[in-house]
C-alpha cells in the first residue's frame, strides 16, 4: 500500500499535514523544539499579539480542573512593534507554516496589526482572535455579537493579503450564526474553539483561584463541546475549519476530522505530552491505513456521510 498522503490545503495554504498547534500554548515557536521538531508539524500558531505590549494578568494565572485547565494569562505579549523587530525575523525562518494570532480591544487595534502583517512578512496566515471585549463599545465582545465579528473580519481582510482565519469563541448561544457572520466578513477559514469561560474557587482562601477571577477552560474536558461546534459549523457553512479543544491523542484528532475539521490544532495537550503532535500525526496515518483511506483529506467530515 502507498503511504498515506498527509498533505492538506487550508484557505489557500498547502500544509505538510493537518497538525497545527494552538495560539498561546506554543509560545513563539522555539520553546518546544527540544520535544517536537517543527518540520514535523503542519504549522504553528503564535501567541496572540496586540498593538501595545501587555503584561497580562497577575498570578495565579492557571488552575487545574477535572480533565481541564483554566487560564487567565491576559494576553501578555511584547506588542506589535517588538514582535516585528525581534520575533518576526526568527519565526519567518522556522521550518513550518507560521500563523500569527492577533487580538484587540477595538477595530483599530485589529486593522493596525493587519496592515503590518502581510504576505511579505513570511507568515502563512493571520488568525483573528475575536474573543476579547470591545472596550470602545462598552465591553461587548467582538466574539459574541455577529455584526461586530463580521465587521472586524472585514476590516482585517481589507488591510492584509494574508489568508484570514477567524477564531471563534464557544461562549455563544449559536456558533453557526457567528460562523456565518465571519464568512460574510470574508474569513478564509474558522478556528473552533477558543476556551469556555469558567472559574474555580480556593476553599482555603475562600477566593477565586485565579487572580483574574475568570479564566478560559481548555483541555480534554471541553472536547465534546468543541466537536459539536465543528460538526454544526461544517453542516452550515463552506469554510474550512481548524478544530481544537482538548486534542491530546490521535483518536481525539480523528474525531475532529470526522466531524468536519480540515486541520486540527493541539493546545493544552502539548503540556501533557510535548510529543503529542508527532504521535497524533502517526496515529492519523495508521488510522487511514487501517481503513484503507489514501489521504487524510478524505477523513474530513466523513461522519456526516457514512
Amino acid at each position, binding site marked *: 500500500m502507498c503511504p498515506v498522503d498527509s498533505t492538506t490545503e487550508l484557505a489557500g495554504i498547502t500544509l505538510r499535514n493537518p497538525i497545527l498547534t494552538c495560539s498561546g500554548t506554543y509560545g513563539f515557536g522555539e520553546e518546544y523544539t527540544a520535544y517536537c521538531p517543527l518540520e514535523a508539524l503542519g504549522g504553528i500558531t503564535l501567541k496572540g499579539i496586540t498593538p501595545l505590549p501587555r503584561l*497580562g494578568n*497577575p498570578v495565579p494565572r492557571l488552575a487545574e480542573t477535572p480533565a481541564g485547565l483554566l487560564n487567565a494569562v491576559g494576553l501578555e505579549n511584547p506588542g506589535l512593534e517588538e514582535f516585528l523587530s525581534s520575533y518576526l525575523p526568527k519565526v519567518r525562518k522556522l521550518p513550518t507554516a507560521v500563523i500569527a494570532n492577533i487580538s484587540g480591544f477595538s477595530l483599530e487595534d485589529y486593522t493596525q496589526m493587519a496592515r503590518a502583517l502581510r504576505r511579505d512578512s513570511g507568515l502563512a496566515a493571520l488568525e483573528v482572535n475575536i474573543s476579547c471585549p470591545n472596550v470602545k463599545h462598552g465591553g461587548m465582545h467582538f466574539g459574541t455579537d455577529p455584526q461586530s465579528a463580521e465587521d472586524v473580519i472585514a476590516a482585517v481582510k481589507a488591510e492584509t493579503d494574508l489568508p484570514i482565519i477567524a477564531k471563534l469563541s464557544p461562549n455563544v448561544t449559536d456558533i453557526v450564526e457567528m460562523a456565518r457572520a465571519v464568512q460574510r466578513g470574508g474569513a478564509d477559514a474558522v478556528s473552533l474553539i477558543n476556551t469556555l469561560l469558567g472559574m474555580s474557587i480556593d476553599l482555603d482562601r475562600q477566593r477565586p483561584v485565579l487572580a483574574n477571577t475568570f479564566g478560559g477552560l481548555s483541555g480534554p474536558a471541553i472536547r465534546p463541546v468543541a466537536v459539536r461546534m465543528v460538526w454544526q459549523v461544517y453542516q452550515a457553512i463552506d469554510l474550512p475549519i481548524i478544530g481544537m479543544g482538548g486534542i491530546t491523542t490521535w483518536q481525539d484528532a480523528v474525531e475532529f476530522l470526522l466531524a468536519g475539521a480540515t486541520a486540527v490544532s493541539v493546545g493544552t495537550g502539548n503540556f501533557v505530552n510535548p510529543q503529542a503532535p508527532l504521535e497524533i500525526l502517526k496515529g492519523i496515518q495508521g488510522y487511514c491505513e487501517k481503513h484503507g483511506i489514501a489521504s487524510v483529506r478524505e477523513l474530513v467530515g466523513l461522519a456526516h456521510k457514512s
Partner: protein
Amino acid sequence: MLTEGLVVVHERLGEEAQRLMKLVLKGPIAKTAQAGQFVAVRVQDPTLASYDPLLRRPISLAEISPESDEITLLYRVVGKGTEILARARCGDRLSIMGPLGRGFSLPEDGELWLIAGGIGIFPLYPLAQRALAKGLSVRLFWGGDNQTFLESAGLSEWQALGIPIHLSTMDGSLGQKGLVTVQVLGLLWEFNGKVENSGQTMDGKLYVATCGPHKMMQAVTELCMNSGVPVEVSLEERMGCAVGACLGCVCTLKDEAGTLIHKKVCQDGPVFRGEEVVWDVSC
C-alpha cells in the same frame, strides 16, 4: 528532553504523617542536570489516556547522580497529583520532562550559605554537594515545623556532609524556636563584623541560596540586600507547559531601569537573583 524514568526506589521518607516520599528514577537526564533545576513529571502511567489530573507536576532535583544515571525527587503528598504519583512502584516508568529551568549558580570561591524553609531544603542538597566538591565552605540554615519534620526530611544526610547547621523549629523541639531568618540575621551580623575587622569587602566572599516559603525568601533577600550579599532565590508558581510557552508561571522582576517585567519561572527561573524579584505584586 522527554524521557522515561524507571522507578528504582520509591519509599516513604521519614515519619508517615509528614507525607514525604523519596523517588529515585533511572534515566539519562542526570548527566546534564544542575542543582536548582526541576523536572515535570506525568504522575500517571503515560500509556493511560486518563486526563484527571491533567498537568505534569514540577518537582526539583533533590539528588543528581550522573555516575549511576539516577535522579532523586523528594516530595510531599499534598493533592491529587502527588497522591497518584505516590502509587508508582519499582519497575514502573514515568514520563519526565527535564532538566528544566535555570538552577543555582555555583560561586567560584568563598562561603555559601543555604537558607531553607520546610521542604525548600530539597533542591539545596545537590547544590551543597557540588559546592563542597568545589572546595567552597557551606553552611546551612533550616527552619521547619518541628523536630519530626526536620528528621524526616533528611537532617541526617545533611549532618553527614559535615557542615555547620543552624536549625529552627516553630515549636522549639529542635534547634532554636522561631523563624530561621532570626538565626540568619544573627550570623550575618557576626560575619559582617568579621569582614569589617579583616578589612575585606564582602564582595566575592559570601553567597546565599534560599528556597522556601515566599515570605521567608523575601525576608532573606532583604537581609542579604542590606548586607550587600548576593542572594539567589528559587520561586514557585503554578505551571502549564514548563518550557516557557504558555506564560502561565510568570513572576514579576525589576529590570536595571527599574521597569517591572515578567519572567517565566519555568524557563528563566526557578532561580532568580533575589534583588531583582518584586515580592509584593499585583500585576
